[in-house]
């Protein structure tokens, strides 16, 4: 049986004396050595979960374990064993890269040399700027430095709260490559992101919305579970088409997705593509293009969200 690195049992968190429900009865398990993603928009409750798991906040209900230790009872043990990177850049802006790293290594009672092989890959990229103050670094470099600091004590579990928010596309890709290499070292990684396209880079993901988990599965299975055929439709006037299609009784959902509209029908038709094209042309739309497509994580997310409502 696989070992569980992080487990949450019916965790609930409220703010403002119970007025705001941030995390609503969340249960989930992350296996040891897994790269697990929490996917959801802003306000879904991701940061609250991270702060609960890092023992920074106490949950109002439920229990949780991290690296085999109880969140409340053994919070000191957990603080020793996790690497945490908050959503907001939280290193000392007036210290240089080198000073930040030395300081955090020291706080954990280790030194940079001791776990150098773990951070070497990442550190090499910021090494040329090691005497520059953290506040003067670019977004991508800040994020690499923060990751180095979170890794410096060789944590068992790495908790990364929206590490790629506000980072350019190239740095984001580099970052996910780094996470994959870290995973190979046996570190359990729990990462959150509002970007759906990053979801498929995780081994398993949890889709979150308004404090609730909607689905926990591998990205492939989540896509596979999409229960209907999905069509991408476009015409000369996409907005008018959106309004027209939404009025049809047969159309279950229709939403804009890039330059296309993604459409599902209430009952799957064999010739759904032809049917949609005819409908659109009958309404007077020109240059109508319809194709059957594979759903993405985002499609699944939108569908689950609509079902919840």
């Amino acid at each position, binding site marked *: 049986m696989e070992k569980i690195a992080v487990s949450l049992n019916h965790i609930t968190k409220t703010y403002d004396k119970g007025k705001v429900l941030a995390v609503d009865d969340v249960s989930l398990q992350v296996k040891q050595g897994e790269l697990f993603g929490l996917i959801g928009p802003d306000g879904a409750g991701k940061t609250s979960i991270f702060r609960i798991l890092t023992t920074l906040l106490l949950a109002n209900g439920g229990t949780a374990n991290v690296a085999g230790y109880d969140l409340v009872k053994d919070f000191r043990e957990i603080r020793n064993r996790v690497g945490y990177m908050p959503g907001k850049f939280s290193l000392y802006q007036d210290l240089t890269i080198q000073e930040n790293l030395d300081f955090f290594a020291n*706080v954990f009672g280790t030194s940079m040399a001791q776990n150098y092989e773990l951070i070497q890959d990442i550190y090499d990229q910021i090494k040329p700027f090691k005497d520059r103050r953290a506040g003067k670094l670019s977004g991508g470099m800040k994020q690499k430095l923060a990751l180095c600091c979170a890794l410096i004590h060789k944590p068992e579990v790495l908790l990364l709260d929206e590490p790629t928010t506000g980072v350019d596309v190239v740095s984001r890709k580099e970052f996910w490559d780094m996470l994959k290499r870290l995973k190979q070292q046996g570190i359990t990684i729990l990462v959150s992101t509002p970007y759906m396209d990053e979801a498929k880079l995780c081994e398993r993901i949890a889709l979150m919305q308004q404090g609730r988990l909607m689905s926990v599965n591998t990205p492939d299975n989540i896509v596979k579970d999409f229960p209907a055929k999905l069509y991408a439709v476009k015409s000369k006037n996409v907005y008018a088409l959106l309004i027209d299609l939404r009025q049809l009784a047969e159309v279950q959902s229709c939403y804009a997705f890039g330059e296309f509209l993604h459409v599902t029908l209430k009952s799957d038709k064999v010739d759904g593509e032809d049917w949609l094209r005819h409908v659109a042309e009958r309404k007077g739309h020109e240059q109508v293009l319809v194709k059957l497509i594979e759903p993405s994580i985002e499609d699944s997310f939108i569908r689950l969200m609509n079902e919840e409502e």
Partner: protein
Amino acid sequence: MKQLFIFIRKEFYHVFRDKRTLLIMFGLPVVQIVLFGFALNNEVKNVELLIVDKAQDALSGQLTDKIRASAYFIVEEDPGMAYTAIEAKLKKGNTKSALIIPANFSDDLKHGGSAQVQIIADGSDPNVAKTIVNYLSRIIGDFQKQVFATPSIMPYTIVPEMRMLYNEEGNGSLNFIPGVMALILMIVCTALTSVSVVKEKEMGTMEVLLVSPFKPIMVLIAKAVPYLLLSIANFTLILLLTVFLLDIAIKGSILLLFLESTLFIITCLSLGLLISNVTASQQTALLICLMAMMLPTIIFTGFIMPLENMPKPFQVISNIVPSRWYFLIVKSVMLKGLGFQSVWKETLVLFGMAISLLFIALKNFKIRLQ
């Protein structure tokens, strides 16, 4: 130990890279010492005095010369001035005081045995007015003794021989200095440390720091040490300014003064740390320091308003203000030259305050986010 050392080194980086704070820390004492030492002086010197001598004889001339010879007055004479003109002059603020010698001054004095002069002072500034009246009365009293030098007329006179002990020349800045020292150390130490912990909360670095095995006491010590050393340096600067700029000698043991000041600084740092631990933003922390600390310190230390004159409840409140005790210690050691045996009680009070504040600060250190 090494962990603590690196933690402290990090705090030093923060302090030395924040040039503005350093400027406040070392600029404030200089400004305050100069302000309190020179500008805010309750001595009255060079007051304008209008002498209206209607007598114009030898005796009134002697009196006028005597007044003129003192350093306190800038004398303007106008024998023919009318009362209304005198009042107008006072009203406009062209003079602070007037002395009117009546026409039959000498005659009354010689034949009647007593004569009258009128002193008018601008009472809108009561302290200055009172001082002027005192000065003039003294000069006139002196003059009287000269005139009636023969003991036959005034057989028994009691001459009070006054000495202002510990401050023979009546140097006004002497009383202010211990107070200013207490005030500066209180403000600088408390205000600077009060932002230190809360700054980490605000910048988010506390979030990362909390998720590590460090101990709260380590953070507090690391935060306090740089400010302790800087405050001692600051104190040295204040002492140097006092001795060389204001010409005030340190009568007691310098070592004792330094030790007592270190104790006071630690008390203030603990208070700053406590404020830092219970507030959520740097602004709140600074506001609490300035509003809730500065005013009580000025009022309850006793260097501007004597505590003895306050209503009983205020006197009781003043006991919890650390600077009040430090003020007493500095006055005793620095100005009177007393030793430890005279200030041990005050020292004990400060020590108790430091320990309890540090303990409360430690207890209030939040190990989680709120």
